[in-house]
């Protein structure tokens, strides 16, 4: 999909926004993208997204999930309906949480929206929330702790808000509107599943990336071309590796190129891979800001060092060892084991 960026005139945008708001008033339970598209068939999906986002950030629309789609609802109608029977304090707290949720935590990737059909793993929401700590709610509302706790409990039981444990601080919780999705800062992103760090998953990715690079390096060496060509063909860009991993299909979640680079970095720290950065023409596949990161598998420069071939090199009680002591070379169990082997 090409990067088409069609300019939207401000006047046109206002017009579109109004049309969408009208639709919402007509259908107070909420409208979907499909509804808007039916009503405004000539509206470019991109422009639709821009308009919706503006309405959301201006606080005129609320965003909800229904089934697998997105629902847009007029804000006022919803809040007044929902908050019937709540006192003013509850409304205040709810507002604070809602506002926090409307500050979209991650950038909406327009291109991504267009590629829905091409991407197999699609999280379903392009608007994610970072949530808000209860301490911050207190600060903004100026209400005492006991009151806040009571209110939060109430709102939770009415399923208006929910608490999500943050991966950043496992004891703390953030609050957000019930229907929103927590973003990466809360969930930990691709590497966390329910706040559990997926060590095995990371390990598998680490191994797969390395295998890919190693194969490439071996192929380059066997090619027996000139040394310069050999070296250059042993490199792979992070984009190449990312593509390979995506095609492997081993990931349940969608991984970004940044994610892959994080994995590749661990391989650098493993001493197995080295990276170099080259200048790349704007627009080259895999280039970011005119640069491309290249990686290749490398061999270690030394074999395990001499001292690690003796028991003393790994001995946990080394400092207590002396001839004549309880632990000594003469009675060392590790030496005995080593000699027998």
């Amino acid at each position, binding site marked *: 999909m090409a990067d088409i960026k069609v300019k939207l005139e401000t006047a046109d945008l206002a017009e579109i926004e109004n049309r969408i708001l009208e639709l919402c008033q007509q259908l107070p339970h909420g409208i979907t993208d499909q509804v808007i598209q039916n009503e405004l068939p000539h509206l470019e999906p991109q422009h639709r997204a821009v308009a919706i986002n503006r309405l959301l950030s201006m606080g005129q629309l609320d965003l909800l999930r229904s089934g697998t789609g997105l629902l847009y609802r007029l804000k006022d109608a919803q809040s007044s309906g929902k908050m019937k029977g709540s006192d003013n304090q509850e409304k205040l707290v709810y507002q604070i949480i809602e506002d926090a949720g409307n500050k979209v935590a991650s950038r909406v990737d327009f291109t991504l929206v267009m590629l829905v059909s091409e991407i197999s793993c699609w999280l379903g929401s392009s608007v994610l929330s970072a949530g808000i700590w209860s301490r911050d709610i207190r600060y903004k509302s100026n209400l005492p702790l006991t009151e806040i706790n009571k209110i939060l409990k109430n709102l939770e039981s009415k399923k208006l808000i929910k608490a999500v444990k943050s991966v950043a601080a496992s004891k703390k919780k953030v609050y957000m509107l019930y229907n929103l999705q927590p973003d990466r800062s809360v969930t930990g992103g691709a590497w966390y599943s329910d706040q559990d760090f997926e060590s095995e998953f990371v390990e598998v990715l680490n191994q797969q990336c390395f295998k890919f690079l190693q194969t490439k390096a071996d192929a380059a060496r066997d090619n027996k071309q000139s040394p310069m060509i050999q070296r250059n063909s042993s490199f792979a860009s992070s984009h190449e590796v990312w593509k390979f991993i995506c095609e492997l299909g081993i990931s349940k979640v969608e991984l970004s190129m940044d994610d892959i680079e994080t994995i590749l970095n661990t391989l*650098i720290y493993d001493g197995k891979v080295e990276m170099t950065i080259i200048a790349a023409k704007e627009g080259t596949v895999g280039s970011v800001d005119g640069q491309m990161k290249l990686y290749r598998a490398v061999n270690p420069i030394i074999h395990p060092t001499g001292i690690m071939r003796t028991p003393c090199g790994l001995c946990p009680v080394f400092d207590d060892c002396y001839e004549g002591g309880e632990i000594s070379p003469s009675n060392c169990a590790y030496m005995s084991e080593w000699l027998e082997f």
Partner: protein
Amino acid sequence: MTQAEIKLCSLLLQEHFGEIVDKVGAHILQTGSQPLRLISNDTGTPLDQVKKALCVLIQHNLVSYQLSKRGFVEYEAHHDRVLRILRYPHYIYTAKTLYGDTGELIVEELLLNGKMTMSTAVKKVADRLTETMEADGKAMDYGEVSSTFVRLVDTHFIYRCPAPLEPPEGAAAPAPVAPLLLTSEKDMYTVPKLSMIGKGKRRRSSDDDDDDDASEQQTKRQKKEADSKETLPDDGIYWQVNTERFHQHFRDQAVISAIANKMDQISSEIVRTMLRMSEVTTSSNAAHTQPLSSNEIFRSLPTGYNISKQVLDQYLSLLADDPLEFVGRSGDSGGGMFVINLHKALATLASATLESVVQERFGSRCARIFRLILRKRHLEQKQVEDFAMVPAKEAKDMLYKLLSENLVTLQEIPKTPDHAPSRTFYLYAVNILSSSRLLLQRCYKTVANLIERRLFETKENKRLLEKSQRIEAIIASMQATGAEEAQLQEIEEMITAPERQQLEALKRNVNRIDASENQVDETIFILESYISTSTKP
């Protein structure tokens, strides 16, 4: 000098020179310079024995003396030279690879005797080589041995010992209290004009019936030689092994090896060529070799290496661009000027050594964390978790392990004047130099431990060993007097089968420990070399 170093020195002295030399040597290592009487008093060793011990130590360049201001002679031991004993096999083996059996024996004799005159060395080596030659009258020519000796001097593997001043002619002056030994720079590698003509002499074989006769003759001959020593033209001109030169060679080998491991054979051969070209022009502690042009390098490649100039240039370019930074660019003339970054290479090798230790001791995850901190210089725990992609609990555990072994340091940087923990940066860092120093000490202690264990194993089986040696000796003398096969068999069977097994196990253990001592010395060498690059001015 640490206690670990002194302990190891003591063991080495004991194994190679005996208890008394050990007692004397270890004592002055501990106390520093001391005069004769004090050594005798402090160690409770009779004066004449102390004198003998000191003579031996001085002969082997392990102790030197100085006239103190108050007029008495003080003796000082050099721990670094004693530790070199561990490396003797490596020196000898290197001489073999470079100069064949002749070179091997010359270096061996010089190490066994500490210092020798050229004529004595040549004769000795010729005799030994003759022994190994087929018994058809062939003998090793002195000339051949001489020329190898000269080559060793020319390439600085051997050098002339400092000499006392010549006493004025005819003076009846008494010998100086402590002769001052001086080195003349120009003479250090100058071989005296000797015309050594002759061949090596074979010792009488053990098949000879007149055992006593032979030994008597041998003693007589040696006495004659001893008497005639004073008349030799190179009297007083002694030579010793130049360990620094060998170390330079070992360092070069380590660099070449690293490149071969990471890149390929051709790259490592190019680097070997460059190092060979730089041997004489580079001072022993230089950070870089002198710049070499790609043209020069091309001309100096070993014959048989037919790579084109363009290909060579490619290899040089790749070497210079490699993140290892062992090779650097230093100008454009002559097709491109290149240097070898010796200090950088040693630092990288030391770093790799530390990484190896972490890897083998604590595993891959810990090694990853170690390398990460090394690259990023300073990191907080959270950053370590994120970059290394390990969960918090594991990161904490591993950082603690590294901290407890002094492989990683922790620095507190307070954000606020009250140093409150919640408002303080806790930064982890790696200090290659200090970690290398600590690892080196661990290596010294390790070798000492290995020696102690080896001696223990031998001591445990002392009785059996002596029995076996006695029986061997009996068999040998019986063979000499022409005993029958059956009789020999009977004696052999005096060692039972389980005893044989025990002896074999002992031999296997001693071999394993000896081999491991050699291999720990490799680690010691890299660390010592790296540490010396950062302490010398």
